[in-house]
Protein backbone atom coordinates (compact mmCIF):
# COMPACT_ATOMS: atom_id res chain seq x y z
CA UNK A 1 0.00 0.00 0.00
CA UNK A 2 1.37 3.41 -0.99
CA UNK A 3 1.37 6.28 1.44
CA UNK A 4 -0.17 9.60 0.51
CA UNK A 5 3.27 11.23 0.73
CA UNK A 6 4.62 8.75 -1.83
CA UNK A 7 1.71 9.41 -4.15
CA UNK A 8 2.13 13.19 -3.94
CA UNK A 9 5.93 13.14 -4.16
CA UNK A 10 6.05 10.76 -7.13
CA UNK A 11 3.08 12.42 -8.79
CA UNK A 12 1.26 9.12 -9.04
CA UNK A 13 -2.15 9.29 -10.62
CA UNK A 14 -5.46 7.67 -9.85
CA UNK A 15 -8.13 6.68 -12.31
CA UNK A 16 -11.65 7.77 -13.13
CA UNK A 17 -14.40 6.22 -15.20
CA UNK A 18 -17.54 8.30 -15.52
CA UNK A 19 -18.79 8.57 -11.91
CA UNK A 20 -16.20 6.26 -10.39
CA UNK A 21 -12.76 7.22 -9.13
CA UNK A 22 -9.92 5.05 -7.89
CA UNK A 23 -7.30 6.47 -5.54
CA UNK A 24 -3.93 4.71 -5.13
CA UNK A 25 -3.93 5.06 -1.35
CA UNK A 26 -6.32 4.42 1.48
CA UNK A 27 -7.47 6.45 4.43
CA UNK A 28 -10.46 7.85 6.27
CA UNK A 29 -12.32 10.39 4.19
CA UNK A 30 -13.80 13.20 6.28
CA UNK A 31 -15.20 15.47 3.62
CA UNK A 32 -15.62 15.55 -0.15
CA UNK A 33 -16.45 18.57 -2.23
CA UNK A 34 -17.62 17.85 -5.74
CA UNK A 35 -19.04 20.65 -7.85
CA UNK A 36 -20.87 22.67 -5.17
CA UNK A 37 -21.90 19.68 -3.07
CA UNK A 38 -20.26 19.22 0.30
CA UNK A 39 -20.46 15.55 1.22
CA UNK A 40 -19.88 14.46 4.79
CA UNK A 41 -22.37 11.62 5.11
CA UNK A 42 -20.70 8.39 4.00
CA UNK A 43 -23.23 5.98 5.47
CA UNK A 44 -24.61 3.29 3.17
CA UNK A 45 -27.99 5.04 2.90
CA UNK A 46 -26.62 8.47 1.94
CA UNK A 47 -27.40 7.99 -1.76
CA UNK A 48 -24.72 10.45 -2.86
CA UNK A 49 -21.41 8.70 -2.58
CA UNK A 50 -20.31 5.13 -2.05
CA UNK A 51 -16.83 4.41 -0.71
CA UNK A 52 -15.21 0.98 -1.04
CA UNK A 53 -11.90 0.34 0.61
CA UNK A 54 -9.52 -2.26 -0.80
CA UNK A 55 -6.07 -3.19 0.40
CA UNK A 56 -4.24 -1.09 -2.21
CA UNK A 57 -6.74 1.56 -3.17
CA UNK A 58 -9.94 3.43 -2.45
CA UNK A 59 -12.90 3.32 -4.81
CA UNK A 60 -15.51 6.09 -4.82
CA UNK A 61 -18.80 6.22 -6.72
CA UNK A 62 -20.52 9.59 -7.03
CA UNK A 63 -24.06 8.33 -7.31
CA UNK A 64 -25.70 11.63 -8.26
CA UNK A 65 -23.49 12.06 -11.32
CA UNK A 66 -23.56 10.01 -14.49
CA UNK A 67 -20.23 11.38 -15.62
CA UNK A 68 -18.02 13.58 -13.47
CA UNK A 69 -16.51 15.31 -16.51
CA UNK A 70 -19.92 16.89 -17.15
CA UNK A 71 -19.79 18.64 -13.78
CA UNK A 72 -16.07 19.26 -13.26
CA UNK A 73 -14.13 21.29 -15.82
CA UNK A 74 -10.44 20.69 -16.53
CA UNK A 75 -9.49 23.57 -14.23
CA UNK A 76 -11.76 22.46 -11.40
CA UNK A 77 -11.10 19.75 -8.89
CA UNK A 78 -12.78 17.31 -6.57
CA UNK A 79 -11.57 18.03 -3.06
CA UNK A 80 -11.04 15.59 -0.26
CA UNK A 81 -10.16 15.99 3.37
CA UNK A 82 -8.58 12.70 4.31
CA UNK A 83 -6.63 11.16 7.19
CA UNK A 84 -4.14 8.47 6.34
CA UNK A 85 -4.45 5.07 7.95
CA UNK A 86 -2.82 4.70 11.37
CA UNK A 87 -2.80 8.46 11.92
CA UNK A 88 -4.74 10.14 14.70
CA UNK A 89 -8.01 11.23 13.12
CA UNK A 90 -8.61 13.75 15.91
CA UNK A 91 -5.41 15.65 15.26
CA UNK A 92 -6.20 18.46 12.78
CA UNK A 93 -2.62 18.39 11.55
CA UNK A 94 -3.36 14.98 10.05
CA UNK A 95 -6.26 16.29 7.99
CA UNK A 96 -4.75 16.30 4.49
CA UNK A 97 -6.38 18.44 1.82
CA UNK A 98 -6.28 16.79 -1.57
CA UNK A 99 -7.27 18.07 -5.01
CA UNK A 100 -8.22 15.60 -7.73
CA UNK A 101 -8.13 16.76 -11.37
CA UNK A 102 -9.81 14.82 -14.17
CA UNK A 103 -7.23 14.59 -16.93
CA UNK A 104 -7.29 12.87 -20.29
CA UNK A 105 -7.26 9.09 -20.70
CA UNK A 106 -9.04 8.48 -17.39
CA UNK A 107 -6.05 9.77 -15.45
CA UNK A 108 -6.78 11.43 -12.15
CA UNK A 109 -4.01 13.72 -10.97
CA UNK A 110 -3.60 14.10 -7.23
CA UNK A 111 -2.27 17.24 -5.59
CA UNK A 112 -2.08 18.38 -2.01
CA UNK A 113 -2.96 21.94 -1.09
CA UNK A 114 -3.14 24.15 1.91
CA UNK A 115 -2.43 27.35 0.08
CA UNK A 116 -4.91 28.52 -2.50
CA UNK A 117 -8.06 26.61 -1.84
CA UNK A 118 -9.58 26.65 1.57
CA UNK A 119 -11.26 23.77 3.26
CA UNK A 120 -12.94 25.18 6.27
CA UNK A 121 -12.82 22.65 9.06
Amino acid sequence: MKSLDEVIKNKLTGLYYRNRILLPFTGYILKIMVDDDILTDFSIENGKVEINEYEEFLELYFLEYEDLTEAISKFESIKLVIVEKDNDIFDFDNHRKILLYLNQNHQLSIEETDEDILFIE
Partner: protein
Amino acid sequence: MMDVIRKVTKILPITLFLIFIGFQSGLLAKGAQNGATAQAPVVQAEHAANALPDTFMVVPFILLLIMIATGPLLYKRFWEKHYVKVSLLLAFIVISYYMIFLNDAGSVLHTASEYISFIALLSSLFIVSGGILIKVDKKATPVLNVLFLFFGAVVSNIIGTTGASMLLIRPFIKMNRGRIAPYHIVFFIFIISNMGGALTPIGDPPLFLGFLKGVPFLWVIENVWYIWLPAIALALTAFYFYDASNKKESVSKTEYTGKVKISGYINFVYLGVIILAVFIDPGVISWVPSLSPLPFGLREVIMFAVSFAAYKKADIKILKANEFDFEPIKEVAFLFIGIFATMIPALQLIAHEAKAMGTKLDAGIFYWSSGALSSVLDNAPTYLNFLSAEMGKYGLNVNVKADVINFVLKDPLYLRAVSVGSVFFGAFTYIGNGPNFMVKSISEKAGIEMPGFMSYILKYSVIILLPLFTIIWLLFFFNRG
Protein backbone atom coordinates in the same frame (compact mmCIF):
# COMPACT_ATOMS: atom_id res chain seq x y z
CA MET B 1 -40.35 9.81 -26.38
CA MET B 2 -36.94 10.71 -25.01
CA ASP B 3 -35.44 10.14 -28.47
CA VAL B 4 -37.88 12.58 -29.98
CA ILE B 5 -37.04 15.18 -27.30
CA ARG B 6 -33.34 14.61 -27.90
CA LYS B 7 -33.74 15.06 -31.67
CA VAL B 8 -35.86 18.18 -31.22
CA THR B 9 -33.34 19.76 -28.87
CA LYS B 10 -30.52 18.96 -31.25
CA ILE B 11 -32.18 20.66 -34.20
CA LEU B 12 -33.68 23.51 -32.19
CA PRO B 13 -30.62 25.79 -32.15
CA ILE B 14 -30.17 25.23 -35.90
CA THR B 15 -33.84 25.97 -36.53
CA LEU B 16 -33.62 29.17 -34.47
CA PHE B 17 -30.55 30.19 -36.45
CA LEU B 18 -32.32 29.48 -39.75
CA ILE B 19 -35.36 31.46 -38.66
CA PHE B 20 -33.03 34.29 -37.74
CA ILE B 21 -31.29 34.15 -41.12
CA GLY B 22 -34.74 34.02 -42.69
CA PHE B 23 -35.65 37.27 -40.95
CA GLN B 24 -32.41 38.79 -42.08
CA SER B 25 -32.88 37.87 -45.72
CA GLY B 26 -36.49 39.02 -45.67
CA LEU B 27 -35.53 42.36 -44.25
CA LEU B 28 -32.61 42.71 -46.62
CA ALA B 29 -34.83 42.00 -49.58
CA LYS B 30 -37.31 44.58 -48.35
CA GLY B 31 -34.51 47.08 -47.85
CA ALA B 32 -33.14 46.45 -51.33
CA GLN B 33 -36.55 46.94 -52.89
CA ASN B 34 -36.90 50.30 -51.25
CA GLY B 35 -33.42 51.33 -52.19
CA ALA B 36 -32.71 51.56 -48.49
CA THR B 37 -29.33 51.96 -46.84
CA ALA B 38 -27.55 49.18 -44.95
CA GLN B 39 -28.96 50.50 -41.66
CA ALA B 40 -32.50 50.21 -42.94
CA PRO B 41 -33.50 46.86 -41.43
CA VAL B 42 -32.68 47.97 -37.92
CA VAL B 43 -34.29 51.33 -38.40
CA GLN B 44 -37.36 49.67 -39.81
CA ALA B 45 -37.36 47.32 -36.89
CA GLU B 46 -37.21 50.17 -34.44
CA HIS B 47 -39.98 52.15 -35.99
CA ALA B 48 -42.28 49.38 -37.00
CA ALA B 49 -45.74 50.08 -35.71
CA ASN B 50 -46.39 46.48 -34.82
CA ALA B 51 -49.60 44.95 -33.61
CA LEU B 52 -49.67 44.13 -29.90
CA PRO B 53 -49.07 40.49 -29.07
CA ASP B 54 -51.72 38.37 -27.36
CA THR B 55 -51.50 38.58 -23.55
CA PHE B 56 -51.16 34.81 -23.49
CA MET B 57 -47.74 35.19 -25.09
CA VAL B 58 -46.21 36.38 -21.80
CA VAL B 59 -46.70 32.84 -20.44
CA PRO B 60 -43.35 31.56 -21.84
CA PHE B 61 -41.58 34.51 -20.16
CA ILE B 62 -43.28 33.92 -16.80
CA LEU B 63 -42.67 30.19 -17.06
CA LEU B 64 -38.99 30.70 -17.80
CA LEU B 65 -38.51 33.13 -14.92
CA ILE B 66 -40.30 30.77 -12.52
CA MET B 67 -38.11 27.90 -13.65
CA ILE B 68 -34.93 29.97 -13.31
CA ALA B 69 -35.99 30.83 -9.77
CA THR B 70 -37.08 27.37 -8.69
CA GLY B 71 -34.93 25.06 -10.84
CA PRO B 72 -31.62 25.30 -8.95
CA LEU B 73 -33.44 24.91 -5.64
CA LEU B 74 -36.26 22.42 -6.14
CA TYR B 75 -35.25 20.21 -9.08
CA LYS B 76 -31.54 20.89 -9.39
CA ARG B 77 -30.45 17.81 -11.36
CA PHE B 78 -33.28 18.10 -13.91
CA TRP B 79 -32.59 21.80 -14.31
CA GLU B 80 -28.83 21.36 -14.77
CA LYS B 81 -29.48 18.78 -17.46
CA HIS B 82 -32.32 20.43 -19.35
CA TYR B 83 -32.18 24.22 -18.86
CA VAL B 84 -30.74 24.75 -22.34
CA LYS B 85 -33.61 22.86 -23.96
CA VAL B 86 -36.21 24.67 -21.85
CA SER B 87 -34.80 28.08 -22.68
CA LEU B 88 -34.47 27.40 -26.43
CA LEU B 89 -37.89 25.83 -26.66
CA LEU B 90 -39.60 28.80 -25.01
CA ALA B 91 -37.62 31.20 -27.21
CA PHE B 92 -38.65 29.18 -30.26
CA ILE B 93 -42.34 29.45 -29.34
CA VAL B 94 -42.23 33.25 -29.06
CA ILE B 95 -40.06 33.76 -32.16
CA SER B 96 -42.37 31.53 -34.21
CA TYR B 97 -45.37 33.50 -32.96
CA TYR B 98 -43.82 36.79 -34.01
CA MET B 99 -42.77 35.43 -37.37
CA ILE B 100 -45.92 33.53 -38.30
CA PHE B 101 -48.78 35.36 -36.58
CA LEU B 102 -47.53 38.94 -36.23
CA ASN B 103 -45.28 38.98 -39.28
CA ASP B 104 -42.95 41.10 -37.12
CA ALA B 105 -39.37 40.20 -37.91
CA GLY B 106 -38.11 43.59 -36.79
CA SER B 107 -38.73 43.08 -33.08
CA VAL B 108 -36.89 39.77 -33.14
CA LEU B 109 -33.95 41.13 -35.12
CA HIS B 110 -33.62 44.09 -32.80
CA THR B 111 -33.68 41.79 -29.77
CA ALA B 112 -31.10 39.48 -31.33
CA SER B 113 -28.63 42.31 -31.81
CA GLU B 114 -29.15 43.42 -28.19
CA TYR B 115 -28.61 39.88 -26.97
CA ILE B 116 -25.31 39.58 -28.81
CA SER B 117 -24.07 42.90 -27.37
CA PHE B 118 -25.14 41.82 -23.90
CA ILE B 119 -23.52 38.40 -23.96
CA ALA B 120 -20.35 39.73 -25.61
CA LEU B 121 -19.71 42.08 -22.70
CA LEU B 122 -20.65 39.64 -19.97
CA SER B 123 -18.68 36.71 -21.36
CA SER B 124 -15.59 38.76 -22.14
CA LEU B 125 -15.49 40.23 -18.61
CA PHE B 126 -16.01 36.75 -17.16
CA ILE B 127 -13.30 35.07 -19.24
CA VAL B 128 -10.71 37.81 -18.84
CA SER B 129 -11.25 38.10 -15.06
CA GLY B 130 -10.78 34.35 -14.79
CA GLY B 131 -7.16 34.79 -15.91
CA ILE B 132 -6.29 37.14 -13.05
CA LEU B 133 -5.31 35.82 -9.64
CA ILE B 134 -5.13 38.02 -6.57
CA LYS B 135 -3.56 36.71 -3.40
CA VAL B 136 -3.89 38.86 -0.31
CA ASP B 137 -1.62 37.55 2.41
CA LYS B 138 -2.78 39.89 5.14
CA LYS B 139 -4.51 39.13 8.38
CA ALA B 140 -8.09 40.32 8.12
CA THR B 141 -9.43 42.90 10.53
CA PRO B 142 -12.87 44.53 10.41
CA VAL B 143 -11.35 47.74 9.04
CA LEU B 144 -9.35 45.92 6.37
CA ASN B 145 -12.46 43.97 5.38
CA VAL B 146 -14.47 47.18 5.09
CA LEU B 147 -11.78 48.69 2.86
CA PHE B 148 -11.66 45.51 0.78
CA LEU B 149 -15.44 45.50 0.28
CA PHE B 150 -15.44 49.20 -0.64
CA PHE B 151 -12.63 48.58 -3.12
CA GLY B 152 -14.67 45.69 -4.56
CA ALA B 153 -17.75 47.92 -4.86
CA VAL B 154 -15.75 50.42 -6.91
CA VAL B 155 -14.09 47.70 -9.02
CA SER B 156 -17.47 46.12 -9.82
CA ASN B 157 -18.26 49.26 -11.82
CA ILE B 158 -15.16 48.74 -13.95
CA ILE B 159 -15.24 44.99 -14.58
CA GLY B 160 -18.84 44.23 -13.72
CA THR B 161 -20.28 42.58 -10.64
CA THR B 162 -19.64 39.16 -12.19
CA GLY B 163 -15.99 39.89 -12.93
CA ALA B 164 -15.38 41.55 -9.54
CA SER B 165 -17.05 38.68 -7.68
CA MET B 166 -15.01 36.09 -9.49
CA LEU B 167 -11.79 38.03 -8.99
CA LEU B 168 -12.20 38.97 -5.34
CA ILE B 169 -14.13 36.22 -3.58
CA ARG B 170 -11.17 33.86 -3.15
CA PRO B 171 -8.77 36.51 -1.77
CA PHE B 172 -11.54 37.66 0.56
CA ILE B 173 -12.09 34.13 1.88
CA LYS B 174 -8.39 33.51 2.20
CA MET B 175 -7.78 36.79 3.98
CA ASN B 176 -10.35 35.77 6.57
CA ARG B 177 -8.98 32.27 6.94
CA GLY B 178 -9.74 30.98 10.40
CA ARG B 179 -12.46 33.52 11.14
CA ILE B 180 -14.59 33.21 8.04
CA ALA B 181 -18.33 33.05 8.69
CA PRO B 182 -21.36 33.05 6.40
CA TYR B 183 -21.99 36.77 7.04
CA HIS B 184 -18.66 37.57 5.29
CA ILE B 185 -19.93 35.98 2.11
CA VAL B 186 -23.41 37.43 2.47
CA PHE B 187 -22.03 40.99 2.72
CA PHE B 188 -19.72 40.24 -0.19
CA ILE B 189 -22.83 39.33 -2.22
CA PHE B 190 -24.67 42.46 -1.01
CA ILE B 191 -21.87 44.91 -1.72
CA ILE B 192 -19.63 43.55 -4.50
CA SER B 193 -21.96 41.21 -6.38
CA ASN B 194 -24.86 43.68 -6.43
CA MET B 195 -25.09 47.18 -4.94
CA GLY B 196 -21.54 48.17 -5.86
CA GLY B 197 -22.20 47.85 -9.58
CA ALA B 198 -24.86 50.56 -9.70
CA LEU B 199 -22.65 53.32 -11.08
CA THR B 200 -21.89 52.33 -14.67
CA PRO B 201 -23.53 50.32 -17.46
CA ILE B 202 -20.64 47.86 -17.14
CA GLY B 203 -21.45 47.36 -13.47
CA ASP B 204 -24.62 45.34 -13.73
CA PRO B 205 -26.51 43.75 -16.65
CA PRO B 206 -29.69 45.85 -16.27
CA LEU B 207 -27.73 49.05 -16.66
CA PHE B 208 -25.92 47.72 -19.70
CA LEU B 209 -29.28 46.85 -21.25
CA GLY B 210 -30.30 50.45 -20.55
CA PHE B 211 -27.13 51.66 -22.27
CA LEU B 212 -27.89 49.48 -25.28
CA LYS B 213 -31.37 50.98 -25.40
CA GLY B 214 -29.94 54.50 -25.47
CA VAL B 215 -29.33 55.64 -21.86
CA PRO B 216 -26.08 57.66 -22.04
CA PHE B 217 -23.06 55.91 -20.48
CA LEU B 218 -22.34 58.62 -17.90
CA TRP B 219 -25.98 59.17 -16.99
CA VAL B 220 -25.87 56.43 -14.35
CA ILE B 221 -22.90 57.72 -12.39
CA GLU B 222 -24.13 61.32 -12.63
CA ASN B 223 -27.58 60.40 -11.35
CA VAL B 224 -26.97 57.56 -8.93
CA TRP B 225 -23.68 58.29 -7.12
CA TYR B 226 -25.33 60.26 -4.31
CA ILE B 227 -27.64 57.29 -3.65
CA TRP B 228 -24.90 54.70 -4.10
CA LEU B 229 -22.54 56.32 -1.63
CA PRO B 230 -24.84 56.38 1.46
CA ALA B 231 -26.20 52.94 0.57
CA ILE B 232 -22.71 51.42 0.40
CA ALA B 233 -21.69 53.32 3.56
CA LEU B 234 -24.70 51.93 5.45
CA ALA B 235 -24.02 48.38 4.26
CA LEU B 236 -20.35 48.69 5.23
CA THR B 237 -21.28 50.06 8.65
CA ALA B 238 -23.57 47.09 9.25
CA PHE B 239 -20.79 44.77 8.12
CA TYR B 240 -18.32 46.44 10.48
CA PHE B 241 -20.55 45.76 13.49
CA TYR B 242 -20.96 42.11 12.49
CA ASP B 243 -17.25 41.70 11.88
CA ALA B 244 -16.12 43.55 14.98
CA SER B 245 -18.13 41.14 17.11
CA ASN B 246 -16.42 38.14 15.48
CA LYS B 247 -13.80 37.22 18.04
CA LYS B 248 -12.50 34.16 16.22
CA GLU B 249 -8.76 34.22 15.74
CA SER B 250 -6.95 32.75 12.78
CA VAL B 251 -6.00 29.10 13.24
CA SER B 252 -3.64 29.20 10.31
CA LYS B 253 -0.15 27.90 10.89
CA THR B 254 1.43 30.19 8.35
CA GLU B 255 2.63 33.68 9.11
CA TYR B 256 1.14 36.52 7.11
CA THR B 257 3.62 38.34 4.91
CA GLY B 258 1.33 41.34 4.48
CA LYS B 259 1.84 41.17 0.73
CA VAL B 260 -0.71 41.41 -2.05
CA LYS B 261 0.30 39.37 -5.08
CA ILE B 262 -1.40 39.75 -8.42
CA SER B 263 -0.80 37.38 -11.32
CA GLY B 264 -2.06 37.63 -14.88
CA TYR B 265 -1.32 41.34 -15.37
CA ILE B 266 -1.77 41.11 -19.13
CA ASN B 267 -5.46 40.50 -18.51
CA PHE B 268 -5.81 44.02 -17.13
CA VAL B 269 -4.81 45.22 -20.60
CA TYR B 270 -7.50 42.94 -22.08
CA LEU B 271 -10.00 44.38 -19.59
CA GLY B 272 -9.05 47.88 -20.68
CA VAL B 273 -9.64 46.96 -24.32
CA ILE B 274 -13.07 45.51 -23.47
CA ILE B 275 -14.08 48.63 -21.57
CA LEU B 276 -12.93 50.88 -24.41
CA ALA B 277 -14.76 48.64 -26.87
CA VAL B 278 -18.06 49.46 -25.12
CA PHE B 279 -17.88 52.88 -26.80
CA ILE B 280 -16.99 51.53 -30.25
CA ASP B 281 -20.44 51.96 -31.67
CA PRO B 282 -21.49 53.87 -34.78
CA GLY B 283 -24.11 55.58 -32.61
CA VAL B 284 -21.41 56.90 -30.24
CA ILE B 285 -18.43 57.47 -32.55
CA SER B 286 -19.34 58.49 -36.08
CA TRP B 287 -16.30 56.99 -37.88
CA VAL B 288 -16.87 53.50 -36.48
CA PRO B 289 -18.05 51.33 -39.38
CA SER B 290 -21.40 49.63 -39.05
CA LEU B 291 -21.53 45.93 -39.83
CA SER B 292 -25.25 46.14 -40.50
CA PRO B 293 -27.19 44.07 -41.55
CA LEU B 294 -25.24 41.69 -39.32
CA PRO B 295 -26.83 41.66 -35.85
CA PHE B 296 -23.55 42.70 -34.18
CA GLY B 297 -20.93 45.37 -34.59
CA LEU B 298 -17.21 45.95 -34.32
CA ARG B 299 -17.61 46.25 -30.54
CA GLU B 300 -18.80 42.66 -30.21
CA VAL B 301 -16.12 41.37 -32.62
CA ILE B 302 -13.43 43.02 -30.47
CA MET B 303 -14.90 41.65 -27.25
CA PHE B 304 -15.10 38.09 -28.52
CA ALA B 305 -11.60 38.29 -30.04
CA VAL B 306 -10.13 39.61 -26.77
CA SER B 307 -11.88 36.84 -24.79
CA PHE B 308 -10.52 34.21 -27.14
CA ALA B 309 -6.98 35.59 -26.92
CA ALA B 310 -7.19 35.93 -23.12
CA TYR B 311 -8.32 32.35 -22.68
CA LYS B 312 -5.77 30.92 -25.08
CA LYS B 313 -2.91 32.87 -23.48
CA ALA B 314 -4.05 32.34 -19.88
CA ASP B 315 -1.72 30.73 -17.39
CA ILE B 316 -3.11 27.29 -16.60
CA LYS B 317 -1.98 27.61 -12.99
CA ILE B 318 -4.12 30.73 -12.62
CA LEU B 319 -7.12 29.09 -14.25
CA LYS B 320 -6.73 26.14 -11.89
CA ALA B 321 -6.37 28.37 -8.86
CA ASN B 322 -9.52 30.22 -9.95
CA GLU B 323 -11.19 26.89 -10.78
CA PHE B 324 -12.19 28.45 -14.07
CA ASP B 325 -15.25 26.90 -15.64
CA PHE B 326 -17.29 27.98 -18.66
CA GLU B 327 -20.47 26.60 -17.11
CA PRO B 328 -21.62 29.83 -15.36
CA ILE B 329 -21.31 31.89 -18.54
CA LYS B 330 -22.75 29.10 -20.67
CA GLU B 331 -25.74 29.09 -18.35
CA VAL B 332 -26.17 32.85 -18.65
CA ALA B 333 -25.77 32.68 -22.45
CA PHE B 334 -28.46 30.05 -22.95
CA LEU B 335 -30.88 31.33 -20.34
CA PHE B 336 -30.70 34.81 -21.78
CA ILE B 337 -31.56 33.56 -25.26
CA GLY B 338 -34.83 32.49 -23.67
CA ILE B 339 -35.19 35.64 -21.56
CA PHE B 340 -34.51 38.05 -24.42
CA ALA B 341 -36.85 36.24 -26.82
CA THR B 342 -39.71 35.60 -24.41
CA MET B 343 -39.68 39.11 -22.94
CA ILE B 344 -40.45 40.77 -26.29
CA PRO B 345 -44.25 40.48 -25.79
CA ALA B 346 -43.96 41.34 -22.07
CA LEU B 347 -42.09 44.56 -22.85
CA GLN B 348 -44.59 45.62 -25.49
CA LEU B 349 -47.63 44.85 -23.31
CA ILE B 350 -46.21 46.54 -20.21
CA ALA B 351 -45.42 49.70 -22.16
CA HIS B 352 -48.97 49.69 -23.51
CA GLU B 353 -50.54 49.17 -20.06
CA ALA B 354 -48.35 51.79 -18.40
CA LYS B 355 -49.55 54.35 -20.90
CA ALA B 356 -53.09 53.62 -19.75
CA MET B 357 -52.15 53.84 -16.04
CA GLY B 358 -50.60 57.28 -16.59
CA THR B 359 -49.96 59.38 -13.50
CA LYS B 360 -51.06 56.75 -11.00
CA LEU B 361 -47.49 55.44 -10.91
CA ASP B 362 -44.98 57.43 -8.85
CA ALA B 363 -41.21 56.96 -8.44
CA GLY B 364 -41.63 55.08 -5.15
CA ILE B 365 -43.88 52.51 -6.81
CA PHE B 366 -41.28 52.02 -9.56
CA TYR B 367 -38.49 51.69 -6.98
CA TRP B 368 -40.28 49.07 -4.87
CA SER B 369 -41.88 47.20 -7.76
CA SER B 370 -38.72 46.92 -9.84
CA GLY B 371 -36.82 46.04 -6.66
CA ALA B 372 -39.28 43.42 -5.44
CA LEU B 373 -39.31 41.71 -8.83
CA SER B 374 -35.53 41.98 -9.20
CA SER B 375 -35.06 40.18 -5.93
CA VAL B 376 -36.83 37.06 -7.14
CA LEU B 377 -36.55 37.34 -10.90
CA ASP B 378 -33.58 38.21 -12.99
CA ASN B 379 -32.93 41.94 -12.60
CA ALA B 380 -32.00 42.59 -16.24
CA PRO B 381 -35.40 41.85 -17.80
CA THR B 382 -37.10 43.43 -14.80
CA TYR B 383 -35.25 46.69 -15.44
CA LEU B 384 -36.24 46.65 -19.09
CA ASN B 385 -39.86 45.91 -18.32
CA PHE B 386 -40.05 48.83 -15.91
CA LEU B 387 -38.15 51.15 -18.24
CA SER B 388 -40.66 50.18 -20.87
CA ALA B 389 -43.51 50.90 -18.42
CA GLU B 390 -42.07 54.30 -17.42
CA MET B 391 -41.67 55.30 -21.03
CA GLY B 392 -45.12 53.97 -21.81
CA LYS B 393 -46.52 56.61 -19.46
CA TYR B 394 -45.37 59.23 -21.95
CA GLY B 395 -46.26 57.21 -25.02
CA LEU B 396 -42.57 56.57 -25.75
CA ASN B 397 -41.17 53.32 -27.12
CA VAL B 398 -38.27 51.64 -25.32
CA ASN B 399 -37.10 50.15 -28.62
CA VAL B 400 -36.48 53.57 -30.16
CA LYS B 401 -33.17 55.12 -29.08
CA ALA B 402 -34.35 58.67 -29.69
CA ASP B 403 -37.35 58.03 -27.42
CA VAL B 404 -35.07 56.70 -24.67
CA ILE B 405 -32.79 59.74 -24.83
CA ASN B 406 -35.82 62.02 -24.85
CA PHE B 407 -37.21 60.20 -21.79
CA VAL B 408 -33.91 60.37 -19.89
CA LEU B 409 -33.78 64.14 -20.37
CA LYS B 410 -37.45 64.57 -19.59
CA ASP B 411 -37.80 62.66 -16.34
CA PRO B 412 -34.64 61.18 -14.77
CA LEU B 413 -36.36 60.47 -11.42
CA TYR B 414 -38.19 57.40 -12.71
CA LEU B 415 -35.17 55.93 -14.44
CA ARG B 416 -33.13 56.56 -11.29
CA ALA B 417 -35.72 54.70 -9.22
CA VAL B 418 -35.70 51.70 -11.52
CA SER B 419 -31.90 51.68 -11.93
CA VAL B 420 -31.38 51.68 -8.16
CA GLY B 421 -34.24 49.25 -7.47
CA SER B 422 -33.13 46.72 -10.08
CA VAL B 423 -29.47 46.72 -9.07
CA PHE B 424 -29.74 47.00 -5.28
CA PHE B 425 -32.56 44.48 -4.78
CA GLY B 426 -30.69 41.85 -6.78
CA ALA B 427 -28.89 41.21 -3.49
CA PHE B 428 -32.06 40.24 -1.65
CA THR B 429 -32.03 36.56 -2.62
CA TYR B 430 -29.59 34.09 -4.15
CA ILE B 431 -31.53 34.25 -7.40
CA GLY B 432 -31.67 38.03 -7.73
CA ASN B 433 -28.44 38.35 -9.70
CA GLY B 434 -26.14 35.94 -11.54
CA PRO B 435 -23.01 36.35 -9.38
CA ASN B 436 -24.93 35.57 -6.16
CA PHE B 437 -25.10 31.88 -6.93
CA MET B 438 -21.55 31.89 -8.27
CA VAL B 439 -20.19 33.35 -5.03
CA LYS B 440 -22.29 30.94 -2.97
CA SER B 441 -20.98 28.05 -5.03
CA ILE B 442 -17.30 29.12 -4.73
CA SER B 443 -17.70 29.62 -0.99
CA GLU B 444 -19.28 26.22 -0.55
CA LYS B 445 -16.48 24.66 -2.56
CA ALA B 446 -14.14 26.29 -0.08
CA GLY B 447 -16.02 24.50 2.68
CA ILE B 448 -18.16 27.33 4.03
CA GLU B 449 -21.64 26.23 5.03
CA MET B 450 -23.70 28.95 3.42
CA PRO B 451 -27.24 29.72 4.61
CA GLY B 452 -30.09 28.14 2.67
CA PHE B 453 -32.42 30.13 0.41
CA MET B 454 -34.89 31.20 3.12
CA SER B 455 -32.27 31.52 5.81
CA TYR B 456 -30.33 33.99 3.63
CA ILE B 457 -33.46 36.12 3.25
CA LEU B 458 -34.67 35.95 6.86
CA LYS B 459 -31.32 36.15 8.65
CA TYR B 460 -29.66 38.75 6.45
CA SER B 461 -31.77 40.39 3.73
CA VAL B 462 -34.76 41.22 5.94
CA ILE B 463 -32.57 42.33 8.84
CA ILE B 464 -30.01 44.37 6.88
CA LEU B 465 -31.25 45.15 3.39
CA LEU B 466 -34.90 45.88 4.05
CA PRO B 467 -34.20 48.76 6.51
CA LEU B 468 -31.42 50.00 4.21
CA PHE B 469 -33.66 50.02 1.15
CA THR B 470 -36.40 51.72 3.16
CA ILE B 471 -34.00 54.51 4.14
CA ILE B 472 -33.02 54.94 0.48
CA TRP B 473 -36.69 55.11 -0.45
CA LEU B 474 -37.47 57.69 2.24
CA LEU B 475 -34.51 59.84 1.29
CA PHE B 476 -34.76 59.74 -2.48
CA PHE B 477 -38.09 58.44 -3.76
CA PHE B 478 -40.82 58.84 -1.12
CA ASN B 479 -43.67 61.02 -2.32
CA ARG B 480 -41.85 62.05 -5.47
CA GLY B 481 -42.89 61.99 -9.08
